[in-house]
C-alpha cells in the first residue's frame, strides 16, 4: 500500500468555520418564531436549517460539508415518537401492569434507535459529492450502547472507561466515507488515565464547591438570614453547576481528542484534534453568562463561538488528495436505504 504512494509527508488541512453570529441569529430567531407560530411543527425544518448552517460553514481543505435531509422525514419521526408516547401513557394509566413490558420493549428498541439516528445523520451528510455512511448493526449497538454501560455501572464504574472505549470504537469504526472505513485504536490504559484525571479533578472541584457552600451556610446561620432562599440557591448552585461543567467538559474533550487523534480514514489519512478542555470550559461557562444576561438573545453568538473554536482545532492529515473517492452508495441503495435509514435523530456523538 505504502510503496505505491511513496512515503510522502502528509498535507495538513486545518478545519475552518466561516459562520457568523449575526447571520446565525437571523436564522435562529426566524426558526423560533415559525416554530411557535406552527405549534412546533416547523421545529423539524428549524433543526435542518440550524445544522445545515453549521455544517455548511465547516470547511476542510476548501470544501464545505453539506447536510441535506428531508425535514418531512424528521417530522414523521417525531410524530411516530409522539404516537408511541401517547400509546404508552394511555396504556400504562389503564393497565399499570404493562409498565415493565413497555420498559423491556424500550430497551430492546434502543439499539435500533441509535443505529437509525447515526445512519440518518451520516447518510445525510456529504463532503465533496460523497456521502458518509454508518454501518453499525443491531448486535453492535446492543453490546456497545446497552450492555457495556450496564457492565460499567454494575462494576461500580470500575469498567466504565472500558465501556466508553467500546462505545467510541463502535461510533468511529462504523462510520464510512465513500465506502472506505474510519478506524480508531487507542490503548485501554490511556482512557483509564483520562478517567483517573477526571476523578481527581472532580474531587478537587467538589471539595471547593462544598467547602464554599458550607462556609456560606455557616455565615448565614450566624447572620440568621435563613429566608434568603434564592440567594442561597444561586450561591450554591452556580459554583456547583460550573464545577460539573468543567469536569464533564474535561472528560468529554479528552476522550474526544484521544478518539480522534488515533483515528485514520481509509488506513492512511489521519485526524487531529487539539481542543483544550480548559479553553472549552471557559467558552462554555462564559457563554452561559452571556446567554443569561441577554435573556437568551445572545445564544446564536455563543453557539457560533463554541462551534468555531471546536472546528478550528481539528485538522486532517491527508496522505493524498481526496479526488479518488467515489460513492459506493448506488442510486438503488440510497433510494430504498434512506427510507429505512431512520426517522429519529437523537444527536448522538462522540
Amino acid at each position, binding site marked *: 500500500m505504502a510503496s505505491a504512494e511513496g512515503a510522502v509527508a502528509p498535507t495538513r488541512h486545518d478545519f475552518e468555520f*466561516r*459562520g457568523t453570529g449575526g*447571520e*446565525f*441569529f*437571523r*436564522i435562529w*430567531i*426566524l*426558526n*423560533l*418564531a*415559525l*416554530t*411557535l*407560530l406552527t405549534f412546533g411543527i416547523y*421545529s423539524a425544518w*428549524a433543526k435542518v*436549517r*440550524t445544522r*445545515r*448552517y453549521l455544517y*455548511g*460553514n465547516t470547511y476542510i481543505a476548501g470544501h*464545505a460539508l*453539506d447536510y*441535506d435531509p428531508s425535514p418531512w422525514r424528521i417530522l414523521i419521526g417525531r410524530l411516530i415518537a409522539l404516537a408511541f408516547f401517547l400509546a404508552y401513557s394511555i396504556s400504562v394509566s389503564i393497565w399499570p401492569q404493562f409498565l415493565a413490558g413497555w420498559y423491556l420493549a424500550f430497551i430492546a428498541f434502543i439499539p435500533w434507535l441509535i443505529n437509525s439516528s447515526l445512519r440518518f445523520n451520516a447518510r445525510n451528510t456529504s*463532503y465533496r*459529492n*460523497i456521502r458518509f455512511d454508518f454501518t453499525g448493526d443491531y448486535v453492535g449497538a446492543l453490546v456497545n450502547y446497552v450492555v457495556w454501560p450496564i457492565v460499567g455501572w454494575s462494576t461500580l464504574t470500575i469498567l466504565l472507561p472500558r465501556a466508553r472505549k467500546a462505545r467510541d470504537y463502535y461510533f468511529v469504526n462504523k462510520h464510512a466515507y465513500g465506502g472506505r472505513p474510519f478506524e480508531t485504536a487507542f490503548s485501554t490504559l490511556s482512557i483509564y488515565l483520562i478517567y483517573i484525571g477526571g476523578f481527581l479533578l472532580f474531587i478537587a472541584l467538589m471539595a471547593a464547591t462544598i467547602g464554599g457552600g458550607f462556609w456560606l451556610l455557616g455565615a448565614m*446561620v450566624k*447572620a*440568621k*438570614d*435563613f*429566608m*434568603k432562599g*434564592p*440567594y442561597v*440557591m444561586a450561591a450554591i*448552585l452556580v459554583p456547583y*453547576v460550573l464545577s460539573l*461543567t468543567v469536569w464533564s467538559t474535561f472528560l468529554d474533550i479528552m476522550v474526544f481528542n484521544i478518539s480522534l487523534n488515533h483515528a485514520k480514514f481509509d488506513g492512511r489519512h489521519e485526524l487531529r484534534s487539539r481542543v483544550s478542555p480548559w479553553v472549552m470550559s471557559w467558552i*462554555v461557562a462564559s457563554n452561559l453568562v452571556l*446567554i*443569561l444576561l441577554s*435573556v*437568551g*438573545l445572545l*445564544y446564536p453568538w*455563543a*453557539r457560533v463561538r*463554541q462551534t468555531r473554536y471546536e472546528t478550528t482545532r481539528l485538522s486532517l492529515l491527508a496522505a493524498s488528495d*481526496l*479526488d*479518488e*473517492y*467515489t*460513492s459506493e452508495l448506488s442510486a438503488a441503495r440510497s433510494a430504498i436505504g434512506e427510507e429505512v435509514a431512520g426517522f429519529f435523530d437523537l*444527536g448522538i456523538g462522540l
Partner: protein
Amino acid sequence: MSVDGRYFFPHSARFIAARASRPEKRVLRFEGADGAMLGEFPVRRVRISERLGNIPRRFRLPDGALFETADNDAADEMLRGTGRGNSAVDRLERSWRWVALSALLSLGAAYGFVQYGIPALAYWLAMATPVNVLDTVSKTTLQTMDHTFLKPSKLGQPQRIRAVVALSKVSVHGRRPGSYDLVFRDAPAVGPNAFALPDGEIVVTDQLFPLIQSDAELEGVLAHEMSHVDHRHGLQGLYQASLVPAAIALVTGDLSQIAQMATILPGILVEAGYSRSFEQQADDDAAAALNANGEDPAALAHLLARMDEKVCGKKSSCPPSWLGSHPATAERVQRLISERKPASKAPQGDLRK
C-alpha cells in the same frame, strides 16, 4: 449570464472549475471552465438547495454529479422565474424587519408562556395527580425532613389542643373539610414556620407558638396552609420546576450543556415568582376563612410581621419581593388588612389563569 463554481463528476469527489447557465427557460447547462460540455438537464430534475446564509449552493444533478457555487446572488439571478431553489424563509431571514418582528414575537411568546402557560399546565397536572402519589410524596418528604432538620415536638398538650381547635374552626372553609391533619415538630434551624404537605398534613414548628398572641392568628396560619393543600401548590411547584427547563430546551432546540445550565438561574427566578403568587392566593383564602368566622384577617398580618422580625432581625434584611419566594411581608400585611371585609365578599379560590 452564468454562475461560476465547481463541478463534481458523477458519484465522485473529483472536481473541476465549471460554470452553470440557463440557455432555455427550463434547462440548466453545466460546462467546464474551458467550455467543455458537462451536462444539460431540465430544471425540475435538478435538486437545488435552498439559500441559507452564506453557505454554498448545491445543484444535485440526476446523473449523480454535483455543481456547487459560493455565489448565491448569481445563482438566484440565474434561477429567477423558474420557481426553484428560492426560499421564502431565506427572504425573511435577510430582512431586518422580519427578524425584529420574530424577536418580538419570540420574546412575547416566552413571556406569555412563563406567565400563563406554565402555571396553567402545572395546575392541570397537579390536579390530575392521583391521591396515592400525593401520599407517597408527602411521606418521603416528611421522612427526609425528619432526618435532616426536624426534631420531635416538645409542645405541651394545651398548645396542641389549641391548634387542633383552631384547625377545626377553619377547616370547614377549606375545599375538603376533614382531610387536613396537624403534625408538630421542633425546628430550631428553621424557626417559626408552618408548611403544608400535598396529602393534607400541616407541619407546625414549636417555634411558632411563642409568637402567637390570639387564636385568630393561629387560625390564619392554618387556613393559609390549608389553601396550599387545596390548590396542591407544592405539587404545582414541582411541575413548574420541571417544565421551565423543558420549555427552554424546546425553544432553543438545544439539549447541550450550555442550554441546560442556562435554565438554572432564570428557572430559580421564575419559580420564585410562581411561588409568590401561591403565597398571595393562600393569604387571600386565609383572609376569606377568617372573615367567614367573623375574625379579623389582619391577625395573620400581625403574626407575619412578628415572624419576619424574628427571622430577619429588626432591620429588615429579607430580600426584595421580586427575588424572594414569599412576597415582602409589608406587602402581605397591606393586602391582608385591605381584605378586612364582610364575609360575603370572600375572594374566589381559583388559581389566577
